[in-house]
């Protein structure tokens, strides 16, 4: 007994109240209400008010929605939106999942590089990404011309559904790819092994075990793709030709008619589509309450078969090559000093870089700072809310889901205006400050982290958290020491996506930025406005390079933490 007493340990000293979850929950709810629900909610309400007025209950009208019933253009746009959204989501998921499987399960070199490169399609500077497809595959595009010259092949027109879907799939598959890749890396390989020994072919294992297990992250990614596809304006504008979507109509309302209320109304229809998708997602996910990361989950043995390695490398690098084409064109264009409608530029050089140099340093700095701060905020609150949403039982989870997704579903400009109106005057006037941009970024991107955390937490065996609690850990300690390390790959993947997409965030920024806080995307936009496409490409290239370096560094961290987790 004395031997035991000699190594006495305090127990009662740490008898503090376990308030961490309440504090965290309270702050999160406050943030969600103040920066998300309130501004967005009032703006959405305005869609029931006549043009230019604020909704006050008395001026309620449905006039902003009437066009959905009367105008066949609206109805067609609605149909196009749903069609594009669904097709892009399905295709992006379909191309991403095999790639994710290969990277997670097949022995391949340069995995960190692959992960980083897959991020690049997300840093598509406004408009120029879509232009790149025209440059390559348009009627006078480089590829089309050579195909025609050499083989007499006539490319199908890149405009319309084909081009839009192609471009959107390739720029959005990353969401699914990263989420699924992370989840598959974590799944207990014993499950696959047991199917294998029973005689299941690789394909069968994939179909009946691996894919079903990857469903939560896959749906999380697909959800994001869907919303991106619903909200995207640049690609349908440049490649859509006469195929209009709801975001086109919103753009018309804002740019042609200065009618934000009508734009909100269209946005609200978009929201309803997404709400349907969310409810569907929740339904599907509810049936799949399962855990794939147990306490002794090993790292899966990688497949080393020659055949599968060749296929995997071809597929992944092929996909990346295709997805990176627009970015390559951007970089190429940045070296074109003269390119007057000819097949190839007529003069190359560093001129564009010299020209833009003085214009990029400060915006780049600003972008990095703003994006970094917003990313941190997203990580903190996205993780907390995602965790709570998955682990705690409460009614109206779908409402939380929707609240978080809302600003992300709305076109950025609507969110921007909502924040601008709410925080333009009154006790907290934030207009013109960096804070409002950060808030704008935060509300627009928290859904990424939220979704990926929800998907990651589903996979973690609750018993590990229980073990920590029973050992005497507070909720906060358990989060810090057990849960967060286990879901770290998910959080980091989300954080990287948030950061990268924020660097080229345009539509909210344009409403909220001030001269002091001009971002790199605004700098690109300015060059586009003045028709200096090559200069814009130069800024774009610098952005791509800087982001790539940062992401590479971060994937190092992810790679490291992943191997630490499951080695």
């Amino acid at each position, binding site marked *: 007994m004395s031997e035991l007493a000699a190594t006495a340990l305090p127990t009662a000293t740490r008898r503090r109240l376990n308030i961490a979850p309440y504090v965290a929950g309270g702050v999160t709810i406050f943030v969600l209400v103040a920066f998300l629900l309130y501004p967005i909610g009032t703006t959405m309400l305005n869609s029931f008010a006549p043009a230019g007025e604020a909704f006050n209950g008395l001026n309620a009208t449905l006039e902003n929605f009437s066009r959905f019933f009367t*105008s066949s253009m609206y109805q067609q746009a609605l149909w196009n939106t749903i069609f594009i959204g669904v097709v892009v989501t399905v295709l992006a998921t379909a191309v991403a999942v095999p790639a994710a499987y290969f990277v997670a399960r097949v022995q391949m070199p340069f995995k960190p590089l692959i992960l980083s490169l897959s991020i690049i399609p997300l840093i598509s500077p406004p408009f120029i990404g879509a232009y790149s497809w025209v440059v390559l595959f*348009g*009627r*006078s595009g480089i590829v089309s011309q050579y195909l025609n010259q050499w083989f007499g092949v006539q490319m199908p027109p890149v405009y319309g559904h084909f081009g839009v879907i192609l471009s959107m799939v390739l720029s959005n598959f990353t969401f699914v790819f990263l989420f699924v890749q992370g989840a598959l890396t974590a799944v207990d390989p014993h499950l696959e092994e047991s199917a294998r020994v029973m005689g299941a072919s690789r394909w069968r294992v994939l179909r009946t075990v691996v894919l079903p297990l990857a469903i939560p992250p896959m749906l999380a990614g697909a959800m994001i793709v869907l919303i991106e596809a619903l909200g995207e304006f640049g690609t349908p504008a440049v490649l859509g030709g*006469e195929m209009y979507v709801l975001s086109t109509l919103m753009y018309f309302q*804002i740019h*042609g008619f200065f009618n934000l209320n009508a734009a909100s109304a269209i946005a609200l229809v978009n929201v309803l589509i997404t709400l349907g998708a969310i409810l569907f997602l929740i339904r599907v996910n509810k049936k799949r309450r399962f855990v794939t990361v147990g306490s002794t989950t090993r790292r899966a043995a990688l497949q080393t078969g020659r055949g599968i390695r060749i296929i995997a490398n071809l597929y992944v690098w092929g996909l990346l090559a295709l997805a990176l084409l627009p970015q390559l064109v951007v970089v190429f264009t940045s070296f074109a000093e003269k390119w007057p409608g000819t097949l190839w530029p007529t003069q190359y050089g560093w001129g564009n870089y010299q020209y833009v140099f003085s214009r990029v340093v400060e915006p780049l700095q600003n972008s990095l700072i703003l994006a970094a701060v917003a990313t941190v905020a997203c990580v903190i609150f996205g993780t907390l809310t995602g965790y709570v949403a998955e682990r705690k039982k409460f009614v109206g989870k779908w409402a939380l889901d929707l609240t978080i997704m809302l600003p992300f579903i709305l076109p950025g400009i609507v969110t921007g205006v909502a924040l601008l109106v709410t925080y*333009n005057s009154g006790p907290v006037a934030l207009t013109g400050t960096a804070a409002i941009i950060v808030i704008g970024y935060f509300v627009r991107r928290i859904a990424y982290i939220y979704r990926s955390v929800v998907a990651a937490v589903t996979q973690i065996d609750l018993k590990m958290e229980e073990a920590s609690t029973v050992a005497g850990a507070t909720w906060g300690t358990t989060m810090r020491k057990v849960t967060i390390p286990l879901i770290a790959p998910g959080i980091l993947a989300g954080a990287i996506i948030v950061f990268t997409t924020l660097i080229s965030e345009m539509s909210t920024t344009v*409403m909220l930025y001030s001269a002091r806080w001009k971002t790199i995307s605004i700098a690109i936009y300015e060059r586009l406005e003045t028709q200096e496409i090559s200069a814009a490409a130069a800024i774009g290239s610098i952005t791509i390079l800087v982001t790539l370096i940062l992401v590479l560094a971060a994937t190092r961290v992810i790679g490291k933490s992943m191997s630490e987790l499951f080695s």
Partner: protein
Amino acid sequence: QEGGLVVYNPAGDAGELIIDAFREKYPGISISAINAGVGELFTRMAAEKDNPQGDVVLCASSEAFLANPGLFAPHESPELPNFDPSVVAADHSFYGCSMPLQAFIVNTNLMSEDQYPRTWSDLAKPELEGKLVLANPSLSGSAYAQLAQILQLYGWDVAEQVMKNARFTTSSQSVFQDVGRGEIEVGVTGEVNIKTMMDEGYPVAAIYPEDGTGLRFDASAVIAGGPNPDNAKLFLDFANSKEAHELIVSTNRRSVRKDVAPPEGLMPTSEVPTFPYDDNLAASTRDENLAKFDELFAQ
């Protein structure tokens, strides 16, 4: 002079030049610019109505001003006499700046000279089917102006034919860029875009419709309730000056001031065939016209 000044600049390089010149002239004023599209800036101004953050808006299309009354403060500019009354608001709340005349852009590689459309009605010819790109009239004031001009000249019959021939894009930049790149033969766009492309060596030509283009103008104004009203007035006066308008011209834009010559290489304004475009009529029938357009478009 000192203090700050925030300029909302939808005019790209032209605006930047004016701002730079003003900065040089009044080094004591710290001037900053928010560059964005007309739509974004006007939406922003509307949202900031209760606590405006900007002082001046520079060279935005006049339609935008008409659609957003009450955002701007009247100002008596000493330059007023140099402006034709038609390009100044009745209450002097905005002053004209450049003239975004609409012209046809044709790709000279894809079309021989004898095939060029010469009049608005030529755009309705069956030969142009699939060879014409226009911006959707819902997209912006200038895009609507194109439709309104056809309607005022020829009515819906011709307009319908044009619609049949044309692809209506959602990106106004696509119109001239696609023609310049050889994606399509003909487009209608602001002359400044055509001139810029020609200067860069693109295989494009500008055609002014012989049946006349509508005289439209961009305008500048002081934002009501802005944080620096005095500097704003000072800036607007400078923007109205001949000096500033010459800067505008240097970016291939046509000035509204009679005493400023058009950009080199552009037809003098007086020689441009014009027709009496009724912008008030255009504005008042806009909803109706666009509704009809939408219906026809959807077919």
